[in-house]
């Protein structure tokens, strides 16, 4: 579902798109079927990255607007963080974790790191 994507979901989409275009999604995620949810707490709703078979989808989750909602959708992990932490890059996220501004479940951070090589 790509129509109308903008802002934060579009940033993640562009990273996954670049990985797919180079064939890296197929090479590095070939045996995986991963669903990761990202909630930018001051820019809800959340969105889900679904990676499978060398392809991906980014889906807006209209009903997921707070951290408490994140467990209501089946996923392999989620991350919830304020926009300024997300936009601070790797260092920003690490600082956000130290300051307990980031909520993480499962392997969300590992997958975000894998996508991060595109930026």
């Amino acid at each position, binding site marked *: 579902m*790509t*129509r*109308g*994507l*903008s*802002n934060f979901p*579009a*940033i993640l*989409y*562009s990273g996954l*798109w*670049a990985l797919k*275009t*180079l*064939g*890296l999604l197929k*090479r590095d995620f070939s045996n995986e079927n991963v669903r990761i949810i990202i909630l930018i707490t*001051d*820019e809800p709703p959340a969105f889900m990255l679904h990676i499978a078979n060398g392809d991906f989808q980014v889906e807006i989750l209209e009903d997921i607007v707070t951290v408490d909602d994140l467990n209501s959708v089946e996923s392999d992990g989620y991350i919830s963080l304020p*926009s*300024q932490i997300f*936009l*601070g890059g790797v*260092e920003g996220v690490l600082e956000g974790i130290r300051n307990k501004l980031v909520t993480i479940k499962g392997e969300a951070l590992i997958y975000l790191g894998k996508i991060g090589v*595109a*930026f």
Partner: protein
Amino acid sequence: MEDDNNLSSLERILMILDGEKPERVASMCLGADYDFFYKFMNSPFAITEEEILKFERDRLSFTTPSNQYLIAKFSPPHILPAGLDAKIDMCWQTVIPGSMIKAKNGKGFVFANGSVEKFSIRENGIPSTWYIGPSILTELDFKTYWESEDRLSPQKAQFSFLSKSRKTMLKNYDVVVSQGINGPFENCILGIGPVNFARLARKNPTFLKKHMEFQWNVIEEPSLRLLMDTKPNLVMCGDDYGYNLGLQIPLKQWQEFVKPYLKKYVDIVHDKGVKFIIHTCGDIHELFPDFVEIGIDGVESLQPQMNDLEMYRKKYPEITLLGTIDDTELLKSGTPESVRREVKSYIAKLGKNGGYIPGPTNFLLDQPPENIVALYKAIQEK
């Protein structure tokens, strides 16, 4: 890593910028947008799995628009066995200093200079980023902006990767990475908008100068210092002054508000013994005498439909002309053969005595990859 019996790209480019004539014309490419990358990867020229492994080992970057994977793919076979043998001698990498925040209305992101950019996905699934407007519009916006020094100031970490990236491209692929930041005009006008710029330039020039001085002190000077600490081979800064029919602002305003800061850019770079190139789109013929006066070494873009290139070559021999190969008609709608003919013709007209580094007049967008390969092959031909 140089050609079999020729100069290295760095030697070749520095000779040209020094007014000497090397053994062949050098080539340049600003970079490529998502559309071109998609077309390229779906063409017979696509980067192979083996090459991707090598680029990963070399820690090249495939971020848009300074996509080093693409640039490296054009290498000759002695550098990259299945390279396209259509060598690019120089590319570009720009640092956007400071932190980005989300726009107040949720539409896009605000950069340190106040410009708002939107990330979106088009109907065809290809990403795009685009400037959508200024964020500093009211007196209160200016006040808030001037109180945000911490967010706007460059971080050392934003520049520290430049040195490694530049050295790898030069050592392993013989490509010079010219590096830079936005120029003073773009930083100002993208943040406050052309209407505000025009109004303040006429009615409150002191206020406009205060804003430009703030951006110089908080963003531009510290960024240039950090950039120069990385010991760049070459600096190219982007500052679009023109549009199709002339300058975006009157020459007198450019001289009053922009030129003093551009001169500071040039001076900081020259103080370290490094050449300074300005990238500026549009018809900019009125600015050449000022470019000479403040010591600019090269001017890049120079769309041929709106610039008298032969006149520039004759009248301003001290300035190297870069770009000049029309990216909107010739490279978009031409054929590899017509591209080759035009490129040879430009080299004959502009590069007989050096002072010329041809390349597409802007980032690669939606041109057929075969035309771009033809362009760089033609530049290499002796």
